[in-house]
């Protein structure tokens, strides 16, 4: 591989050091062939240190405008207050309106009976999507 020498300092290469736990290397290296070449090109005993273990931690969150249900004030990714109390966590889904505001479907279905408008923007409520 012609680029091996110039790119040894870049992150993926450094992360996929030949000494990275031999059994898990395929799982941790995004570009499988690159590090493999590096292993063959440089004997491991020339390295100053070797990485024995590599733990990856990931975080995620919803990329939506409002992540808390404005009706029951529980996060939309969790079950609503009602479903939590009635032990129906699995059935609790999220509803998005045309206005892009989201609520728990159960919370919103109670509210639209009274007033068919989004409680946040007062637009007429039209369901865009229901799901998790």
């Amino acid at each position: 591989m012609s680029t091996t020498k110039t790119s040894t300092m870049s992150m993926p290469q450094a992360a996929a050091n030949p000494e990275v736990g031999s059994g898990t290397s395929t799982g941790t290296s995004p570009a499988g062939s690159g590090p493999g070449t590096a292993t063959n090109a440089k004997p491991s005993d020339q390295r100053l240190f070797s990485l024995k273990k590599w733990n990856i931690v990931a975080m995620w969150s919803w990329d939506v405008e409002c992540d808390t249900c404005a009706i029951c004030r529980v996060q939309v990714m969790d079950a609503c207050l009602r479903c939590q109390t009635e032990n129906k966590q699995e059935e609790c889904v999220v509803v998005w309106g045309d206005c892009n505001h989201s609520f728990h479907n159960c919370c919103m279905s109670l509210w639209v009976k009274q007033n068919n408008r989004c409680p946040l923007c007062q637009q007429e409520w039209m369901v865009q999507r229901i799901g998790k």
Partner: protein
Amino acid sequence: MITLSKKLKEDAARKSSGSNSKSPDLNNSTKRVSIRDRLLIKEVPEMTSSLPKTCKVHFPDVHKLHHSLLTISPEEGYWKDGKFIFELTLTEEYNIAPPKVRCKTKIWHPNISEEGQICLSLLREHSMDGTGWAPTRTLTDVVWGLNALFTDLLNFDDPLNIEAADHYLRDKRDFEVKVQRYVRNYAR
């Protein structure tokens, strides 16, 4: 909060000791109530910690957060020096349904009837514009709204007590005299 933990303990005790035949209904009713109560666990401390300085809140029964008495003592304006007591009752349908509020103190006011009915847009259950009740509103909004009936939201143009509004438009001085007489007689 203390009141909730006590309530939960009581419920648990009732469940374990209570007669088995009755327990399913009992559970259902306590569960339905608890939606409102669970909202209030958050809303009540928020409300009491951000009260206007003219307001005081009292809970006649600390186990019933859905029933409170709000005392408003306006520092300025026509109703200055009066103490007006409002009774707030939150039904089990809260926060889909707005709180029910009555003024317990007889008052001469364009937006409050002598019987205690209140005309405040955010307490309106079915409102087609954006000013009515919405579940996004909280007790804090209600308290500030009621307090504003003595200041910003005082409205002579869309009155509930038409006689009082006409009185003001006819003779402001005499309106003020009557307001103060009501304050002396009923709101001290």
